[in-house]
């Protein structure tokens, strides 16, 4: 069955994301009242995403590429349901495993063991489910000797390893990954890529942000190029990546 016959997992429909860059940010009640009365409550509007549409079908591995500040992370956050788009809509059918930042939601005072359960619950899994997967997570993260040590004593690489192990232990329909493979040593990166590849082989859909062209080409089949919040390219990974790299080399802003 070709990809085009697979059901649509992510449907991004004319999404715009507007931020109000307040010229004078109000954080207090008094300030807001005073400024509103004076009519001074003005904003600079800033569009992080402008009318972006695309669909991702089941089993596809799609990369979002683009320069810093081009709206890649915002797009991922909209897909993950963390942000509501100002205009347009985004529907995701199926479960999402967000990896926007690994270890988000770790409590530094708790031990690795306690954090595995806490983080599992953050991703929507109950204790029983986590019990079943506990061994695998410990095994993959290579942290068996540190399992009862508070996470605040971990190095950043250890935290990332633990976060990655928890996030990928689940079987989700959609994996949303934002630049999380940049950390960790070489061997662990290989292990992570290997795991992502295996998940893809099992039919998981991947939405991937990375600045490493090499990783993108290795992992994804399709790329979407965002430029200042606008979709500028969408197609086979090699074509779009080459186009993007050439544009950058021409010194385009």
């Amino acid at each position, binding site marked *: 069955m070709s990809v085009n016959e697979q059901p649509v997992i992510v449907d991004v429909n004319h999404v715009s994301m507007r931020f109000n860059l307040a010229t004078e940010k109000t954080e207090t009640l008094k300030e807001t009242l005073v400024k509103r009365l004076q009519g001074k409550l003005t904003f600079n509007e800033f569009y992080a995403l402008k009318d972006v549409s695309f669909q991702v079908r089941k089993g596809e591995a799609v990369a979002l590429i683009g320069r810093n500040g081009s709206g890649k992370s915002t797009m991922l*956050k909209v897909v993950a*349901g963390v942000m*509501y788009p100002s205009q347009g809509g985004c529907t995701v059918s199926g479960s999402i495993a967000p990896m926007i930042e690994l270890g988000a939601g770790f*409590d530094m005072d708790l031990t690795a063991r306690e954090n595995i*359960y*806490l983080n599992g619950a953050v991703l*929507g899994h109950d204790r029983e489910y986590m019990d079943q997967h506990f061994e695998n997570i410990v095994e993959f993260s290579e942290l068996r000797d540190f399992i009862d040590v508070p996470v605040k004593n971990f190095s950043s690489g250890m935290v990332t390893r633990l976060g990655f192990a928890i996030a990928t232990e689940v079987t989700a329909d959609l994996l949303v990954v934002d630049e999380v493979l940049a950390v960790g040593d070489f061997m662990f990166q290989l292990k992570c890529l290997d795991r992502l590849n295996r998940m893809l082989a099992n039919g998981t859909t991947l939405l991937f942000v990375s600045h490493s062209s090499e990783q993108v080409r290795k992992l994804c089949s399709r790329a979407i190029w965002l430029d200042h919040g606008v979709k500028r390219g969408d197609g086979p990974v090699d074509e779009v990546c080459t186009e993007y790299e050439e544009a950058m080399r021409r010194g385009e802003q």
Partner: protein
Amino acid sequence: MDNAAKQPKNSQYKVMMTHFVQYMPLVRELVGRDLKVKYRRSFLGYVWSVLNPLLMMIVQTIIFSYMFRTDIPNYPLYLICGNTLFTFFNESANMGLTSIIYNAPLIKKVYIPKYIFPLSRVVSSFVTMSFSLAAVVLVMLLTRSPIYWTILLFWIPLLFLLLFCCGIALTLAALTVYFRDIQHLFSVITLGWMYATPIFYPIEQLPDFAQTLMKFNPMYHYINFFRNLVMHGNIPGPNTWIACIFSSLVMLCLGLWVFRKLQRNFILYV
């Protein structure tokens, strides 16, 4: 505009319910974390939940019965009943207030129904209060106060209070995201509220107009309800029931409404 709004109301509620069930384990984990972190590294640990109200009661009994002379029968029990309930209210309101801004890192990165945070804070305060009820029983035994069957109904006013606190916590959590001043303002309000509630004085001591005003203080009704069951062995009349049910439901609905209204833009402000 957006997809959630397009869906018929019915399925929206269905999604809300499935989320609620799916994220119950998270409430459990968050409550467990709160309790663990609270007593981590303290030698007596959970014993403090019992010891703390007892010590507070002893201090206040000494101050008020020797300095101000009150003629309330079984003053220690009177005090600890009021204190236990008000402490729960105070703790859950203040912890709920910061629940969204403290969990900002998480809210920015993972989708979680956001009401989970204030809710879990209220539940952890409730659990702490349940430990403190042991102190109430202890005082009853030590003061040899009569034990009535009505004490078995103690959970009714606590349930009303729980709903009330959920409403307060949701409202404050949502408003604090936009106006951080509330943190500082509310600590003054709770102090005033505490003095305005008959915790260590009898309501009869107040002038008439203040007694009338007291009818509008929900905390008075919950505490009064609780004391009636525990100390006097009678079930309060319909007025107290109506006041309790009405205030807790109104507060809860207000909280849910405010929270729902404001939660979409939390991420832009936290």
